[in-house]
């Protein structure tokens, strides 16, 4: 059977031609929704959030296009170094981080203050993608093939859970598990792991969850399970979030007309609870629109992953899109009280520099994967190989 090798664009104009404009448009829509909502929760003001969001989104956008131009070989080359760098930053946070809201998540590098955990989300995916690109298919379901990725996932997860940041830890674990699954782990193995996992859950149940989680995390779990019994007032914010969403109704109270979001019933409206402000002002219609855009973004990511020829690009794209979708599920699930309180922002809409830049960088990699979908870098290739 004759094989028709499709070409890979090599020059910048050619690559720009191959840009996935659908995905770009969807991302710009979300960014614009973010700017609008940040303008609204500031009481109809560009200060202090909306204007920064515009700048960050713009910077991220340029970065995203730039990243998309690099060939897969480059990312394969930097995958391990970037991962090791992110790991070092996480250790730095542990040693010498800035504590904000009781969590040590930030590292101060002179003018730049950043959350290494956000960088790690991408670095982890790159490292796993590189690993599985090089791993022969028949080694995926072996102990020797499985140990390195578990180590790659486990080290940052252990560091982040100690910050403490349960949300990001779960996100990393979910992404890692999804990548291993997509790399082709055999079903029988998955069944065994699931069985062991179930036994573990039962074991934890018998041992007591309170011996594992921090006190505040335990309180959140209790509050989530018993919304009416709330002596500590832990459900105040989740309940206010649901009131904010629910009071929006079908079409919302109108742009800038949200009362819950303006009167301070929710903390940090501009970050984790931004979706409730959107639901209040634009109602069910607005909320569904944002969910639909996100669903389309996820679908685009899956389509791109399937269209890629190299295992590196496939695994990378799936990993990134998994991380992204998890963000959305956890955030919306939390603010609608489907999940306990976990501090996870809604990407591209919530205020927060590192998250915007990290997510845009991730989509840069996905756009790059789309451009270079036909590239087939050899296995075991090194930097610039």
């Amino acid at each position, binding site marked *: 059977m004759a094989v028709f090798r499709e070409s890979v664009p090599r020059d910048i104009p050619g690559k720009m031609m191959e840009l996935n404009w659908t995905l770009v448009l969807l991302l710009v829509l979300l960014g614009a929704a973010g700017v609008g909502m940040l303008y609204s929760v500031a009481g109809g003001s560009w200060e202090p959030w909306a204007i920064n969001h515009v700048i960050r989104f713009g910077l991220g956008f340029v970065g995203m296009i730039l990243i998309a131009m690099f060939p897969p070989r480059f990312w394969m080359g930097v995958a391990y170094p970037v991962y090791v760098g992110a790991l070092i930053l996480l250790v730095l946070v542990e040693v010498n981080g800035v504590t904000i809201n009781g969590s040590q998540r930030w590292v101060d590098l002179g003018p730049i203050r950043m959350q290494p955990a956000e960088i790690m989300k991408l670095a982890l995916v790159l490292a796993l993608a590189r690993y599985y690109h090089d791993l022969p298919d028949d080694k995926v379901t072996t102990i020797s093939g499985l140990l390195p990725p578990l180590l790659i996932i486990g080290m940052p997860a252990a560091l982040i859970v100690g910050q403490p940041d349960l949300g990001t830890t779960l996100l990393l674990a979910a992404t890692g598990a999804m990548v291993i699954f997509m790399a082709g782990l055999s079903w029988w193995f998955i069944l065994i792991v699931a069985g062991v996992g179930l036994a573990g859950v039962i074991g934890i149940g018998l041992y007591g969850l309170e011996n594992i989680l921090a006190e505040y995390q335990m309180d959140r779990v209790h509050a989530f399970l018993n919304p009416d019994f709330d002596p500590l007032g832990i459900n105040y914010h989740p309940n206010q979030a649901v009131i904010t969403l629910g009071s929006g109704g079908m079409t919302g109270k109108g742009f800038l007309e949200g009362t819950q979001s303006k*009167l301070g019933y929710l903390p940090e409206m501009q970050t984790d609870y931004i979706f409730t402000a959107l639901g209040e002002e634009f109602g069910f219609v607005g909320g569904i629109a944002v969910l639909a855009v996100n669903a389309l973004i996820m679908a685009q990511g899956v389509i791109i992953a399937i269209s890629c020829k190299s295992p590196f690009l496939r695994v990378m794209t799936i990993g990134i899109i998994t991380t992204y979708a998890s963000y959305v599920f956890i955030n919306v699930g939390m603010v609608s009280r489907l999940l306990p309180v976990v501090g996870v922002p809604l990407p591209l809409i919530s205020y927060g520099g590192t998250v915007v830049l990290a997510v845009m960088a991730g989509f840069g990699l996905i756009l790059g994967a789309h451009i270079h979908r036909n590239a087939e870098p050899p296995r075991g290739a090194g930097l610039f190989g």
Partner: protein
Amino acid sequence: MRADRQEQDLKFTRRALLMAGAGGLAFLGLGARLYSLQVLETERYRLMSEDNQFNFNLLPPSRGRILDRFGVAVADNRDSYRVLLVPEQSGDVASALDRLQPFLPLHDHERERILRTARSQRSFHAITVADDLDWNTFASINLNAPDLAGVTPDVGEVRSYTYGPAFAHVIGYVQPPNDEDIANNPRDAERLLRHPGFRVGKTGVEIAREADLRGQAGALKTEVNARGRVIRELPEQSTQPVAGSDVVLTLDADIQRYAHERLGSESASAVVMDVNTGELIALVSTPSFDPNMFVGGISTADYSALRENDHNPLYHKAIQGTYPPGSTFKAVVAAAALEHEVIRADETLRCTGSTRLGDRTFNCWRPQGHGVVGMNRAIQTSCDIYFYEVAQRVGIDRLYEMATRMGVGAEFDIGIAGVRRGNMPNPAWKRARYNQGWSTGDTYNTGIGQGYVTASPLQLAVMTSRVASGRAVTPTLYRNAMMPPAPHIGLRDETLAHVRGGLRSVVEEVGGTAHYLSPFGIDGVEMAGKTGTAQVYSITAAEREAGIRSQADLPWRLRDHGLFVCFAPVENPRYAVSVVVEHGGGSSSATRPARDILRRVVARDPSSRAGVFADLGNARPGGA
């Protein structure tokens, strides 16, 4: 190799689609959740959101005023100039008070209170720095307010008792409610009662007519944020407070004040009554206190001083004090004797200064006796021997009936708390009280208003009014649009004429016990009256030996009470006055104040002048 690769591609595609499917399901789940919250349950959450958004700030009502019969406000509301401090705007409270110090000097304990309040509440709630400021202080703070960040001059309302002590016992006073007041009120009033600066009636008319005076609170709808700070006011969605109704008294502020001044520092009381309608024109108890002291919170020292004063300023003697009526009661005995025809008016008895009953001797107040006395002279000279005999002829049961009919021992509700009934004894009462039989000696004592009989100044005024007008008047404190003359009491005109004639001669004829009061002081007007003395302590033989001969030699609290009841004009009685001076040492302590008060009320004649209800004049008996 190639086949392997294709199989790998297929496997990846399958799993990617599986993942996409799972993701799609998750999105559907989130969408369903949004549908449930925002479409199915939106009404519930919208209500909760509005509950969050709006607050109703209570607007306290203006308290109704208390007016005298001519509409003069005796309990009013006046503007209270106060200074509020909002810590959020002022910054550090202590330094804000320092900046205020030149204009408003504060004591250390006041500073302490303000700082304590500031610590205990949210910083955007106002704190009252000072209340009830004089105009100069308030004006200077107003002038400098722009430089005093967070300091707000404000005008509130506070109760003001225009006549101070003169009305203190009748109208009472208001104070901030205590927990008991709150428990005794309906639950929905609690918010108003707990409102800062709100006060409720504690005594007198203020508490008796609380329901009318209070009014209804309004509510100002405000939009608030999560911390309770007011974002904006929504006056069009608010309800205005409804001021309390005014209460109109039958009292005449002029007479009330005059009577209060006339009694001076004596431990005394006076009641002035319209003899035809029973309207109370004055109801005075001295010494009094300034009810304004209670409104702002009386100091413990001031309150103890009032409580420990042996002249009992907190006691409403006019309605709560009960005393043996003494000789004033002889009017009742005379009426009973004539009505039951146990003696004719012109029938005479001999008074030798004492009489024997079994082995007991009963003395007349005049040891040398009155000689031959008829009804008129007996009343005029207050002859005890005559009334011992007459009372004995009437008998205790008929005496009891007549006394009650005249108001002694009768219960009156004048619409404020504390009215005491006194006591009119009869055999059944004595049996129940002391488990002893009634003796003729008891009748003797009752016949001269001593022994077991006691009456309040209010009852004495009723008794006098009933004698004067022949009408069964009941005392009234609240003015009604229609106040018709009371029905006749059912005594024969002849009886009444003889009793009134006797009372007239007490003052107007030579030899009367109060003849020194004559002339009355108004041309063509005569007055009638009856003196009385209520014995507090018997001067013993030993004391008499030691030189104690008169009441003036005794310590104050052992001296006799002085009583006097009177009415005028004799020809056409309009007003009755009763005065009791505790430990006055004899009736003369009461006669002159009573005469002066009576003269003032007759000259002023408040009943025939248009009052608050201008159309009243015709309904009451005119000057004829």
